[in-house]
C-alpha cells in the first residue's frame, strides 16, 4: 500500500520525536537505503561509531531500530519512513540483509504457542493447580463477605473509611487470594471515598458489586461453563494470550479502529484500550494493552484505520476482549457507514440485553447518532427523542469541542456506557473522525 506523510505523522509518539524524525528524513543522513515489496531499511549515521540499523515492516507497519532510544517508534524509524514516503527512488530494491531478514521472518511467523503435551499427568497437575486456586478464591471471598458484613454493621459514616490501611489490607488480601480484579475494585472504592462528592452511593454500589461476585461464586456450579469463565475473568483470572489464540475460533473481518482510550490503572500501569468494530460482523472488540513506565506498546493503532485480520475473542458469554492475529493495515479511502443506535433508549435496551448475558460487563461500546451537546447546569447529550444522556468528560474542553463540531448538525459519536454515563471517545464530523 502507499503511505502518506500524514499517516507517517500519526505514528510519532510525541511532537519532539516527530520533529527530530523529520530532520532525519534527508538522504545524506543515510549511507545505506534499501527496500523490497514488504519492507524498507537503512543505516543511519548517529553519534556512535557504528551506524544504527533501522527497518520498517510496511505491512502493518512495524518498526525496528538498534538505537538506545526508549521512544517507539524512534526518530530514526520515523525519519526513514518520511524519507521513503517523500522519495522512494532513493531506496535500492534488493534482498534484505541478515538482521532484517531475521526480524521479518520472526514477524511473519510468530512462534506457535508451545502447547504442552496434554498427557494425563499434565492435565491432572493443571486441574490440581486450578482446584488449589479455587480453594484460595473461596477463602478470600469468605473473608471479603465477613469484611463487608462488618462494614455494613459499623456503617459507611465511620471515620476509618478515609484511611489507606482500611482498604489496603483487604485489597492486598484479595490479590493474595487470586482475586486481583476485586482488589483493584476495592482500591477504586477507596478513591471514591477520597475524591467523589456522592461517594456514599458509589460505595454502596461497589459493595453490591462485590457481594454479587461472592454469591455468584458460591453458586457457580449452577452456571454453564461459559458463564463460569466470565465470572472467573471478572474476578481476575487471566487467560494466557497464547492459549486464547490457540483454543478460540477466529473471526475475520475489516476491523475499524473506532475509539481509543489511554490511562493509568490503580496499580500505575499504563493501559490502552483500542475499540474495534467489524464492518461485516458489526461486532465490537476490545484490544487491551498494558505497559510499564516509558515502555512502548508492541503495536500502534490509529483512530479511523482499518485492519483486515482474523480476530479471536476471549471466552465469555458476551465476548468483548480480543486479540488480533496477523494484521494487514488498509489504506483509508472512505469511512464506512457503521451501524449506530438512533436513540439513547435503543442503546440502553441493547445494553440491558447484554447485561442479561454477561452481568459483569463494566463498559459497553456504542456508536450513537443524532446527539447534540447541551448544558443546563449539567452537561448532557440530547438525542433525537429529546432525552438527556449524561456523559463523562475527561477534560473541560471535551464539551466545547463537541459543541463546536455540532454547530451545524447532530453528531455521530462512539463511546462507552458504564451504566451511568457515556464516555465519548470519537466524534464524526463531515466524514472525519476526531479522537476524544
Amino acid at each position, binding site marked *: 500500500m502507499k503511505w502518506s506523510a500524514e499517516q507517517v505523522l500519526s505514528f510519532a509518539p510525541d511532537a519532539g520525536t516527530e520533529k527530530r524524525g523529520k530532520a532525519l528524513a534527508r538522504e545524506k543522513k543515510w549511507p545505506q537505503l534499501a527496500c523490497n515489496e514488504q519492507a524498507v531499511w537503512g543505516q543511519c549515521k548517529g553519534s556512535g561509531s557504528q551506524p544504527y540499523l533501522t527497518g520498517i515492516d510496511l505491512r502493518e507497519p512495524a518498526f525496528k531500530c538498534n538505537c538506545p532510544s526508549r521512544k517507539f517508534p524512534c526518530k530514526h524509524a520515523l525519519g526513514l519512513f518520511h524519507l521513503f514516503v517523500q522519495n522512494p527512488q532513493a531506496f535500492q530494491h534488493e534482498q534484505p540483509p541478515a538482521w532484517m531478514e531475521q526480524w521479518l521472518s520472526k514477524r511473519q511467523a510468530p512462534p506457535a504457542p508451545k502447547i504442552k503435551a496434554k498427557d494425563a499427568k499434565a492435565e491432572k497437575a493443571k486441574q490440581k493447580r486450578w482446584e488449589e486456586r479455587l480453594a484460595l478464591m473461596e477463602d478470600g471471598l469468605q473473608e471479603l463477605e465477613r469484611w463487608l458484613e462488618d462494614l455494613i454493621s459499623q456503617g459507611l459514616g465511620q471515620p476509618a473509611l478515609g484511611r489507606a490501611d482500611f482498604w489496603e489490607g483487604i485489597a492486598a488480601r484479595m490479590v493474595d487470594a487470586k482475586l486481583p480484579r476485586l482488589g483493584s475494585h476495592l482500591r477504586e472504592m477507596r478513591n471514591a471515598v477520597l475524591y467523589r462528592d456522592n461517594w456514599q452511593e458509589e460505595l454502596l454500589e461497589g459493595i453490591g458489586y462485590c457481594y454479587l461476585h461472592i454469591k455468584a461464586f458460591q453458586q457457580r456450579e449452577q452456571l454453564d461453563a461459559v458463564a463460569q469463565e466470565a465470572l472467573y475473568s471478572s474476578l481476575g483470572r487471566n487467560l494466557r494470550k497464547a492459549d486464547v489464540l490457540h483454543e478460540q475460533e477466529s473471526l475475520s473481518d475489516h476491523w475499524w479502529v473506532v475509539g481509543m482510550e489511554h490511562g493509568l490503572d490503580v496499580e500505575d500501569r499504563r493501559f490502552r484500550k483500542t475499540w474495534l468494530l467489524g464492518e461485516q460482523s458489526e461486532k465490537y472488540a476490545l484490544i487491551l494493552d498494558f505497559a510499564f513506565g516509558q515502555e512502548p506498546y508492541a503495536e500502534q493503532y490509529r483512530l479511523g484505520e482499518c485492519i483486515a485480520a482474523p480476530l479471536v475473542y476471549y471466552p465469555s458469554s458476551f465476548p468483548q476482549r480480543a486479540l488480533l492475529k496477523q494484521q494487514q493495515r488498509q489504506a483509508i479511502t472512505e469511512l464506512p457507514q457503521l451501524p449506530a443506535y438512533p436513540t439513547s433508549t435503543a442503546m440502553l435496551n441493547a445494553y440491558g440485553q447484554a447485561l442479561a448475558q454477561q452481568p459483569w460487563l463494566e463498559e459497553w461500546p456504542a456508536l450513537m447518532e443524532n446527539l447534540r451537546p447541551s448544558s443546563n447546569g449539567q452537561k448532557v447529550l440530547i438525542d433525537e427523542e429529546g432525552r438527556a444522556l449524561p456523559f463523562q468528560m475527561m477534560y473541560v474542553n471535551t464539551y466545547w469541542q463537541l459543541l*463546536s463540531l455540532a454547530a451545524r448538525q447532530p453528531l455521530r459519536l462512539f463511546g462507552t456506557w458504564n451504566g451511568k454515563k457515556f464516555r465519548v471517545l470519537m466524534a464524526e464530523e463531515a466524514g472525519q473522525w476526531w479522537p476524544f
Partner: protein
Amino acid sequence: MTWKELLKICILGTSNHPVKSDWEALSEWGFQKQVQPNQNVLQAAASYAFLQKAAKDIPMAKQPPAPFLEQEEARPCQRSSQLHLMAIVNNPGNEKLLLEFLEEARAAGRSLPAAGLPKLLDWGAQHPENQALLREVAAPRGVWLAQFNSSWAYMLSEIDEERWELGDLKQRRRLFQRWRQQQPQKALQALEAIWEQESLKAKTVFLQSLIGGLSDSDIPFLEKVLDESRKELRIMAADFLALLPNSPLVERMTSRCKRFVTWNKKGLQIELPEKLDEASKRDGIQGNHRALGSSLAANWLGQMLAVVPPSFWEEHLNKNISQLLKAAWQHEWSDYLLWGWIEAAVRYRAQSWLLELFTLYTEYPQEEKWSSLGIGAIFKALDEKHFNLLALQALENHPGILRDDAPVVELLLQEKQAWSDRLTLQVMRRLKETIRSDSYVYHWGLKSILSRAAHLANPELHEQLSRAWPEDSRSWHSWQNDVNDFLTTLQFRKDMRTALWE
C-alpha cells in the same frame, strides 16, 4: 425498601440502626430473605446496584438544544491543515506559528477546524491583542460558540451595558478593551460619561486601555486628563498625546524646545531650561526624572526633545540628519540630546532618522553608553523595507566571520520584521562561512539568529537553505541541533502554507 432507605441504613450502620424493612419490592428480582440482617442489606445492595445499571431511565432534557449555526462558512481546511493546527495548539510556546496559521487561513479564505476552536478561543481570552484577528478568522462558528461561554464574550459584537455598569473591574476592563477595539468612539463616550465617578484604580485601568485605537478624536478628552490631580493619570495622558503628532501638546512642546536648541557659526548650541514651569509639568515633563546623568535641567530638555517630531529639527536648524547627529555626538550634552532624539525617532517611526542613528552606532559600536541611550528601540521601530536594507548594508560592512557582538547580530535578533529572500540567503551564507572557519562553539547570539530566521524567512526557501551546511567542520556538533530546528520549523511553515492554499 427503596435505594434511599438502604443508603440511610448503610451510612448509619446496622448495629446502630435496626433494620425494619419489608423486602417485598425486591422479591421479584430474586431477593431471598436471610436470617442475618447484614446479609439482607448486602443482598439488597447487590440487587439495586445491578438494577440501577440494567434498568436506567434516561430523563427528557429540560430544554431543547441551542439552534444550529445558520450563517455560511468559508471553505473548510483540509485534514492536513487541521492536524497542523492541532499540533500547534497542543504544544505550548508556538504562538508565532499560531499567528501565522491564523493569518494565512484568513488570507486563503479558509474556515478554522471546528475541533480546534475552543482552544483557540481560550487562547484569545488570554491575548486581547489578537482578539480582533480571531473575530475575523474564527467567525461565524466561533461567534456562535461564544454565546454559550462568557469567557469568550470578546467574540460577540454586542456590548453588555449592564456588565459595564455593574461588573467588577476585571470584567469591565475586558469589556472596555473589546469595546475600544470594535467601536473606539463609543467606548470613549462611555468612559467620559462615568469618568468623574470612578476610583483612581479604575481610571488608570480604563485610561491604559485607550491605547488600542488611539486617534485624534481622543485629543480633547486626553487634554482634560492633563488637569487631573493625580500625577500617574497626567503622565499617561501626556504620553498618549505625544503619540498623536496633531495634538496641541506636541505643538506646545515644539515651540517650547525651539529656544533651547539652536545653530550658529560655532555649530549646535544648547541652552538648558532654568526652571521647569507649570505648563511643562502639565505636559508630562517630570521634574525629578533622570533618564541619564545628574543634570536635572538636561533631563528636562531630553524629555522635551523626545516629544518633538525629529523632522522639525531638519527644517528649523536647516541641517541634514547626519550633520545634526554628528554635532550632537560631539556636544557637551550629547547623551541627553541623543537620548531625546532616539526616543523621538522611535515614537514617530522616523525611518531616515533611525537609519542615520544606526549608522552612527556602527561607527562607534564599542561605546558603552549606547545601551543607556536606548539604542535597542531603534531596531524594533524600523519598518520591514528599511530593516532589510540596513541589515544587508551592515552585513557588507562587517566582512569575515560573524561574532555575537557585531551590531548586525543585534539587528538580526529582532522578532518583528520579515526577512527578504536576499537577506535570508546572505545571512545563511555568512553563517555557513562562520561555522566552516571558526571552531569557537559558544556563538549563542548567532545560534539565536537561526531561531529568528525560522519564523521570519520565506519558507519557500527551505530546499535551497537545506543545502551545503558544513557538516564536516570542527564546530558542527554545536550547531547541528540549531540548524535542524531551523530547517524543521521552516519545513513545517512551508507545509502549513501549502495545505492552506491548496
